């Protein structure tokens, strides 16, 4: 039996790679750790000592989180964000998947025309005002649809998904068709089960986009009851920043920097929870979707 022996060069190379990756990991983790430490720093501490990278766990304070979570509008804004994220992603996928599948079929009549029509707004965006006018004329102002429908199909995501579908073996689809399946059945029973990586990847992109949504909400959602979490957090932070004019400071028990850091963590939380479950599909989906076979 042949044994594999590593030369010193190999070991040295491996060491360099590991050292590089370790450095990279530390470079990524330090800012995150710093943000976490800031978010749990009590006000009296920051006003007496200089904040470093280490904070004694005995003085950790979750006051900033408590203040943010206990804000009267927090639950409503979080619910709005979930509705926009969940509903928006569903709408995105319901529209993107069939469109991408149809475009992936080389026999689709007028395929080039449809692809061109999809590419035109991708390359030449109409801009803010025309989009606003369309949303307004469709009476979508002050509805969740106003922040969901304008970006219902992201052309980049559509093209990535189309490429993925094109990479699937035609034989499988042909076999289903020979068995009498129509195109919807082929899509549902054959293509989609094989497309988990791209569905989860594109779904995650869409979901993250919706979760971080605040600009369209500023424009289209006048009713504060519909506003999403990022907008609320943004307003809370702004209020904390200008607190010299707030005579009864609502955020007196935690420093502004702690609010900023805590809100970063709160907004990241759902993505941090979801991402590891999707990660194993993520690289595969991006690579396969990006390469045309």
């Amino acid at each position: 039996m042949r044994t594999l022996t590593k030369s010193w060069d190999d070991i040295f190379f491996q060491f360099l790679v590991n050292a590089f990756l370790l450095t990279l990991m530390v470079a990524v983790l330090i800012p995150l750790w710093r943000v976490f430490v800031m978010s749990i720093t009590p006000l009296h501490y920051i006003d007496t000592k200089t904040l470093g990278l280490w904070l004694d766990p005995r003085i950790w304070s979750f006051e900033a989180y408590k203040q943010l979570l206990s804000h009267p509008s927090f639950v409503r804004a979080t619910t709005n964000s979930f509705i926009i994220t969940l509903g928006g992603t569903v709408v995105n996928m319901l529209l993107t998947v069939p469109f991408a599948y149809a475009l992936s079929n080389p026999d689709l009549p007028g395929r080039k025309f449809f692809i061109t029509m999809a590419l035109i707004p991708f390359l030449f965006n109409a801009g803010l005002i025309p989009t606003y006018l369309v949303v307004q004329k469709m009476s979508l102002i002050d509805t969740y649809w106003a922040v969901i429908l304008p970006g219902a199909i992201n052309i980049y995501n559509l093209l990535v998904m189309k490429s993925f579908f094109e990479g699937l073996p035609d034989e499988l689809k042909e076999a289903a068709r020979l068995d009498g399946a129509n195109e919807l059945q082929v899509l549902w029973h054959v293509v989609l089960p094989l497309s988990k990586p791209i569905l989860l990847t594109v779904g995650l992109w869409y979901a993250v986009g919706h979760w971080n949504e605040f600009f369209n909400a500023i424009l289209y959602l006048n009713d504060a009851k519909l506003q999403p979490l990022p907008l609320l957090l943004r307003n809370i932070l702004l209020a904390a920043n200008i607190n010299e004019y707030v005579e009864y400071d609502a955020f007196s028990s935690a420093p502004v920097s702690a609010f900023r850091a805590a809100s970063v963590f709160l907004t990241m939380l759902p993505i941090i929870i979801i991402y590891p479950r999707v990660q194993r599909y993520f690289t595969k989906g991006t690579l396969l979707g990006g390469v045309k076979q």
Partner: protein
Amino acid sequence: MNKFLLKCLLIIAALSLILSACGAPATPAPTEAPVEPPTEAPEVAPPTEAPEPTPEPPVDLEIWVSGRVTEAGPPPDDWAAYQIIKDELNVNLKVVILPGTQADQDTKINTAAASNSLPDVFFANRDAWYKITEAGLTANVEELLPLMPERTKTHYSDPDRNKQVTYNGGLYGLADPGNLVQTDAMVIRKDWLDKLGLEAPKTLDEFLAVAKAFTNDDPDGNGKKDTYGLCAFIDGSGLNAAGLGPRFDFVYGAYGVAGTWNLSSKGDFGLNVRNPNYMKATEFIKTLNDAKVIDPDWPTLKKDEFRVHWKQGKCGMMQENFAALSTKSNYADFDANFPAGEWVPFDPPTGPDGASSAGVTIKPARIYAVSQRAMDEGKGPAIARLLEWMATDGYMLLAFGQEGVNYKLDANGYVSTEGLEDAAKWTAKEAQPLTQLANMVYIFSDLELQARYPAYKAASGREMAPLSYYAAFQKQAYTNSSGAAVINPPANAADFVRFYSENIVQFVLGQKPLTEESWAEYIAGLDSLGAKDVEASALQTLIDASFIE
């Protein structure tokens, strides 16, 4: 099971979207029958039978305002004011709270303007207001003023503020009082002065001497060299805060060049950097920096970090906002760290020619505009009715909520919350939506100030009265720079201000030699960025707005 769950979630999400879309209110329909302005009654013979007067349909008004607390949301649907406004003024009011930042507000207003869907009354920052007015989308409001006499008296009688909304000689906006002025001035640690046997400085030379003593003579007595004579940071942004910003204005003021602009007269008008005294003031700051009497973090500090530094006991003198310094929540940590510590105001030091200034004052205006569309629809009188009510019968309701529920008046007639339910107090987080329109009614009267900045006893036992700081600041000398509010930034404002400010910082830090030659090069650099055009344009704007004769 998982698939079933997923399907259920999808169905729920889709249904919730449909339901929410159906349930949310659509944009308000335009008023079908606008209210006609009152006209003189024609002479007619008295009718034999008085017909039943036909009630006029209520006028729908939508107003976009900058809320008192941006994150608190609009008043609730059952807000008492809505019903009163409907019953007494015949107005259906819809309130939209604008986002917190100026950039977001401008985006929303500009988008609405571009799509010709501005609301009836809206708050706008001056740059946005100017562009919208140029486009003919705001209405001349002069005809509304006689319809709201009390509000005009209390809100719209300041000439400096009105100039900020003057366009082509007419008033195209309502310039409400913006914020308190002269709120920031110099303060000094009295306990340090006492310990070192010093007096508060009166001149710049004395300022340097006291700053050196605070830095080198261990004024806090902890045996460490951890204190500085002066704490500051580069505050503000934009053309009017170019250079080192307002925290260093007391030095520039001592040389008679506080602020970005010299607005004293048409002949002298221009950027203050052209005045040789500006260089001398910069030299003095460099002297402070070279002597290491300024907190060395000053070039990179943010506002909240600066405030951490004085609460940590690093600072002997500083320019600070009275509320940031002394209100209960802001003072608590300093009080806990230094129970014997005491900040007292002192007059800004005088310069070689005897000049002094605590900083510049720009009378801030909170601009509300009436859309031309609303005026064309005949909503002007209803708008005037509403605004007048806000300044009279509705004032206390909008400023502090309902009497007996959210506030009460004490024996002196001042607003109090004593004995009220915690969550209902007008100061409570839960009650914030009820006073969201307070910015439309505040006039900074004694009643308001006593309510907003109450005296209290700190944990150390020290009696604190924020308004005593405010009163002391009001007595100090400031440089009136109200005209600067109307100067529109140039197209290359970001580059211009960056060049302006970065060079000053480099001079002070010694990264560039501060000599006559280098200063001349600096001015030439500003000119190459269009400084002369900026000045010419600014002068014309000031003349148009009657700030300069």
